[in-house]
Structure formats: C-alpha cells, structure tokens
C-alpha cells in the first residue's frame, strides 16, 4: 500500500464547508462525535478521517483530538487510515458462513485481485471482513457504503454486484 508516501491530505474550502454543515447537523455537540465522524468519513473519497480533518474537528468542537483518535481506533466502522471509495464489507459471521459466504469471499478477492485490508491500485475498492450486520435473512451478503446486497450465493451474482461499481 502506498499510503506512507501519499501526499499530505489538504482540506479544501469545499470540504471545510461540508464538514461545518455536518457539525451544524450535530448541533456542535461533542457527545455526538461518533455520528460526526461517520458523516465526515462519508465525505472523503477514501472513506476515512485523515489527520488534518481530525484536528480540524477538534478545533471546532469542545473535544480533545486524543478522544477523536480513541474513537477512530476503537470503532470498527471508523478509520484513521485510507480505505477506498467502495469498501466491500463481507460478513464473516455464522449465518452467512453456513450459507456459502466463503464462495462469496473468494469471488470478491478474485474479482478485485486483492486480499482483505488491501486497496486496489486505483483506490476504488478494499475488502473488509466484518461481523454480522443483521442481514442474515438474505445471507450471504455484502455491504457497500451502507447498502446491503444479499442472496449472493453464486460467483455470478457476486460479479454482477461488483460490476455495478466498476
């Protein structure tokens, strides 16, 4: 992964405005930091909270940047390192596994050419293994940017879903 040599993240005026809007929606309430970080993460192409953004939020809210990092590193749905435009979350819990999620998992890895935690060269995809997201009635399932795609019990169905994002 090329993140170490990546240029430093710059907050554009447009992004700053969008972050400000998120803060207004959360009433500049520091207790809502988890919700703030989720919303802000969605604004960033690579779906993470870059360091300058974390410091920017710490300036705008009555909160220490260390608390922001405690949250970023504690919660699975938050990230302080670049993910991808389309993080493909594969459920690795029992209900999906007994319904063939291994085939699903292998197909996703095969189509994208990456392993879990890796990012495709163009920054568009990453694979994340996650715990049950409550879609057991449509198992096996993946979740991409909040949307669940279920019943992916054949490689062709998996490919069809991924093709939507290619």
């Amino acid at each position, binding site marked *: 992964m090329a993140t170490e040599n990546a240029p430093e993240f710059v907050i554009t005026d447009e992004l700053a405005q969008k972050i400000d809007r998120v803060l207004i929606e959360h009433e500049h309430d520091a207790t809502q930091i988890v919700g703030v970080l989720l919303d802000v993460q969605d604004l960033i192409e690579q779906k993470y909270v870059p360091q300058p953004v974390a410091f920017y939020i710490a300036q705008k809210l009555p909160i220490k940047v260390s608390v922001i990092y405690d949250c970023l590193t504690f919660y*699975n*749905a938050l990230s302080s390192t670049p993910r991808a435009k389309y993080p493909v979350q594969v459920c690795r819990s029992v209900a999906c596994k007994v319904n063939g999620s291994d085939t699903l998992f292998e197909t996703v890895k095969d189509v994208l050419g990456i392993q879990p935690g890796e990012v495709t060269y163009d920054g568009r995809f990453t694979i994340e293994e996650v715990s049950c997201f409550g879609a057991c009635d449509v198992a096996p399932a993946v979740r991409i940017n*909040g949307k669940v795609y279920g019943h992916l019990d054949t490689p062709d169905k998996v490919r069809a879903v991924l093709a939507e994002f290619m």
Partner: protein
Amino acid sequence: MGYDVKFITKNFGKYDPMSIDSYLSIGGFAALKRAMAMDGEDIASLIAEAKVKGRGGAAYDMGRKWSQSRAVKAPHKLVICNADEGETCTFKDRELIKNDPFNLIEAITICGYTVNAQDGYIYLREEYRHLRPLLLNAIKQAEEHNLLGYNIQNTGFNFHIHLYSGAGAYVCGEGTALIRSIEGKAGRPRKKPPFMKVSGLFALPTCVNNVESFSIVPHLLMDEAREYVSYGSGESLGTKLVSLGGNVRRPGVYEIPFGTTVRDIIYELGQGIPGGQSLRLIQFGGASGKISDGRILDTPYTYDDLKAAGVTVGSGSILVIDNRTSVLDFLRMTQDFFSEESCGQCTPCREGNLHIKLILEKMARGEATQADIRDMKKIATIMSISSLCGLGESAQNALLSAMKIFPKIFEIGGAA
C-alpha cells in the same frame, strides 16, 4: 396452528412509515394520550401484569424496571432505547424500526412519562444507518404535532428524543458501554454498580430498554380485549419476535405466541432445512447464546421451557445449522466473532478469547490433548465468572453448552 399472530407487528404495512398523518389515521398516539391520563405506577403495573420481559437478552421484568426507575428521585432522568442489536442472526429490531418507527417514538415517550424522564436517546447501530432518516423524520413530525417536545398535548410534560449512532462495536450493546458511546467516547464497558437506574448516561438515572420491549407498550395500553395475555402461559405471556436464520428455507422475522414449539418455528414457519440436509445444532439468542441439538425440537418456546432444556431466549434469534457444518467449525466461527469483538479491556475476556481460539485451532488440526480440553473448560468458566461485562461472561456460552450436548467431540484418547 396458531403461530401466525400479529400483536407487536400489527402496524406493519398498515401505514406509511414516513408520515405521521398516516400513523394517526390508524390510531397512532392514542396510547400516549391514554398513558398521559394515567398514573405512571399504573402503566408499570400493566406491563408487569402482562409479564413482559426485556427483549434485548437479559429478560429482566420490564414492569419492575420501569417502577424502579420511577422510584428514583432526581430532577433530570433519561430513557435509552437500545437499537444496537449486534447478536449474530438477530434482526428483529431492524424490522420494527423499518416498518413501525412512529410506534417506537410513541413508546419511548410513554416510558419517559412513566419514569418521569425529560430526555430519550435512541442508540442506533451503524449497520442500520439507512434507517436513520426514518427515525429522524418520525421525531421531527411528532414534535411538529406536539406529541413530542415541550408541553406535550398541554399536559405540562416535556420530553425530547435524540438519535445517536453506533459505529460497529458489538460491545456497545452492553449498557455501560452504550452510555460511554453516547457520551462521545470509545464504548468500553465499566463495572456495575452503580447501576444504570441510579447513575447511567451522563451520570443521570437512566432507564434502558430494547426496541422490541418498547414496541410492545403502546399495543399493550390499547389492548382492551386483553389479547396479549391470551397468548402463552405462566411466566411467558404474549408474543415474541424471533429472528430465524442459518440453514432454513425461509429465514426471517416471525411473531410467535409463546409456547410455539421450536419444531414449528423451524419446520413450519421456516419451512425446514433446504437441500435434504439434516439438523446439526441450533443456537438460541445470538452469538452469546447456548446451543442444543434436535432433542430440543419439541420444546415449547417459553422462558421456562428453554431454560429447562439448557438454553435461553436471549436476543430472540434462532440459528439453524445443518450437518454440512461440524460442531467444531461452528464453535470456531463463533470464537472468531468474540475474538474480534472483545474490547480488550479486562484480562479474562481478552486473554481467554485468545487462548480458547488457539485451543480450538489445535483441535481442528487434531493436535489437542486432554489437558488442552481441560484448560479450555477452565478458561471458559473463569471468563464467565470474572469478566468485566456481559460480553466476556457470555462469550463461551456456546462452547460450554457444546461440551454438554456433544461430549464426544471433546473426548480425546491419549496423553493428558
């Protein structure tokens, strides 16, 4: 057959979940108005008489909980709706929020009135973020209609509801971790006492209930025909939502009267196991639940009967596993879940999960010794009695129950 009931889910499909007018047209908020003409103690008694137990997993007497919360004297009190259902194979709260958000808002408000709270918090798991607009809309419209907010319906009762997001941490379903998360911190649980009803969110007295528990209340208040208590028997009155999943033909959320047999749930509602496979095991109540095998099929689904059969209702999930998955593989999957979700704060849970994972892997490789099995049982037992929170206490329920149900798997000939 009597297992296709609609009491908690009676509003499903009857109204537009984005429109309060639509909800009002089917009698919405009548329960709140009725409640606000009643004494809070009578509301708690009504719930206690129907023997409603908490539907999040702990099955605590809900009427008693509300009555105890009510008895705490404080100028500022809170109510929390726990919508962080993270147990595997549990998705009933998702259906309740998706199909009937106004009923939930109404129920939380009734709870606020009953326990004399001023603020309510909904903690919605990140995985259900797509339901956030539904709840925000329901809150906003209820406020516009003076059914929420200041001086509700000119009764002088003030109550506000705030919606908070989780961020993918199973441990936040535990009450003390949940409140830390709403306080804007990492969701690490703390020791009890102090108990939530005395010192919870923001160190204020807090009454926490699960989505399904709340959802029953408005229907119960309007239940003049006493339909709810006509279902079930003994300590298990009324109906229950079960999330059926795994190897079944028709997985989904079903509302059943208590007393329906496990067989009817799996083979009638769920239409059985597909592909001519046979039943290996059933896990009740999520990843932290206990397991059983086919011997439990004719047990009626009630708190007492399941307990006698060695399992619990828990989160209300029923996970069916067929013979293509071995018991050991099932335990390893469940262990992976807890190894991932343990917050790592207390030693028994952090280290215990790690070591049991290693021993299970050793078993899978056929290298485990009798001493390993003994160690595993010992570690699991230590975890269940000495972990900081419910996660560590219940993480090895599946393993310990498997040791009882499938003792042969853990018998290893050879050196100790």
